[in-house]
């Protein structure tokens, strides 16, 4: 139980990272590869937020009841992950648009068949 309470979030983050990387390396369909890219992104963001956590901490927002910085978590990784999520979705949209154009040009989305075609 002690081992779990220390490392459970790291296991989750790196599990997602490896599942995403395995999908990108071995699958043949182009849309499956793009799904693997999204899973990999989510794993990395989870790892970044898990690093900035401090036990017993609270969210870094002041309000009428929380008026001094007693024990707040680190705000810098949250700003980095906010930027990362937006950039991830824009890369995904552009990748899917290029996949649609590939399908209309070659007639298939199988990566082995596309690589074998000559000019």
């Amino acid at each position: 139980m002690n081992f779990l309470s220390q490392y459970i979030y790291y296991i989750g983050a790196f599990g997602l990272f490896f599942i995403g990387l395995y999908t990108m390396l071995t699958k043949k369909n182009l849309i499956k590869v793009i799904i693997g890219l999204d899973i990999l992104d989510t794993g990395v963001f989870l790892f970044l937020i898990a690093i900035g956590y401090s036990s017993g901490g609270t969210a870094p927002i002041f309000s009428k009841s929380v008026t001094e910085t007693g024990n707040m978590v680190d705000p810098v990784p949250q700003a980095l992950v906010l930027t990362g999520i937006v950039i991830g979705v824009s890369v995904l949209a552009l990748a899917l648009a290029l996949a649609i154009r590939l399908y209309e040009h070659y007639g298939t989305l199988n990566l082995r068949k596309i690589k074998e075609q000559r000019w």
Partner: protein
Amino acid sequence: MRKIIAIVLLAVIVMGISLAVREIPFGKTDTKVGEYYLNEGKEETGAANIVTSVVVNYRGFDTLGEIAVLFTAAIGLGAVFGSRKKKKDAEEVEKSSLIVYTGCRFLFPVILLVGAYIFIHGHLTPGGGFQGGAVVASAFLLMYLTCRGKRIRDKSNKVVESLGGLIFVGIGLVGLIIGKGFLFNFLPKGEFLTLFSGGIIPIIYIAIGFKVGAELTGVLDNIIEESK
């Protein structure tokens, strides 16, 4: 064959990472930059949400770069799909039923209002420009799914998106003209925990909210193609 190579490679990486992660303690942070932002952020910026003041005030230049990346992706998507003629005459689209149509007309302004509330109060409660912009884009997605046959106007969308970006860069340049630096916080701080506090932070987040909402709506509009 390819699967065996992939599994061996991943096993090697698993060994390496599990040896490295063992050194990182979970739950103890001793970073000096985070402590400085937490201790000094209340007096220097006047915003109640420390993550907002880090994103807009202390690291505002990174936010400008992120908006540039989003803009480039939207333009690239328009360029990939733009070389075909848009059919201006409406084809025969099957109309949705009365209940779905009425529900869409009731829900659409409510969702827009929730999104606008999220990005206007970005410096007081959790939220901000990017989250509010995504909620606004999902209101337009609801309109595309239920009231079929209606599209948004291209010109108004592009005008709103460009104005949002111009206001952001313009406010940064005003700080440069005064003589203190790009994106300097020159408006008065105001009273803590009210709406008009934080200097230029609410203005920048409103501009970002409009820009991200219009951009994601443009992406959806480019990728949908009406058919039977």
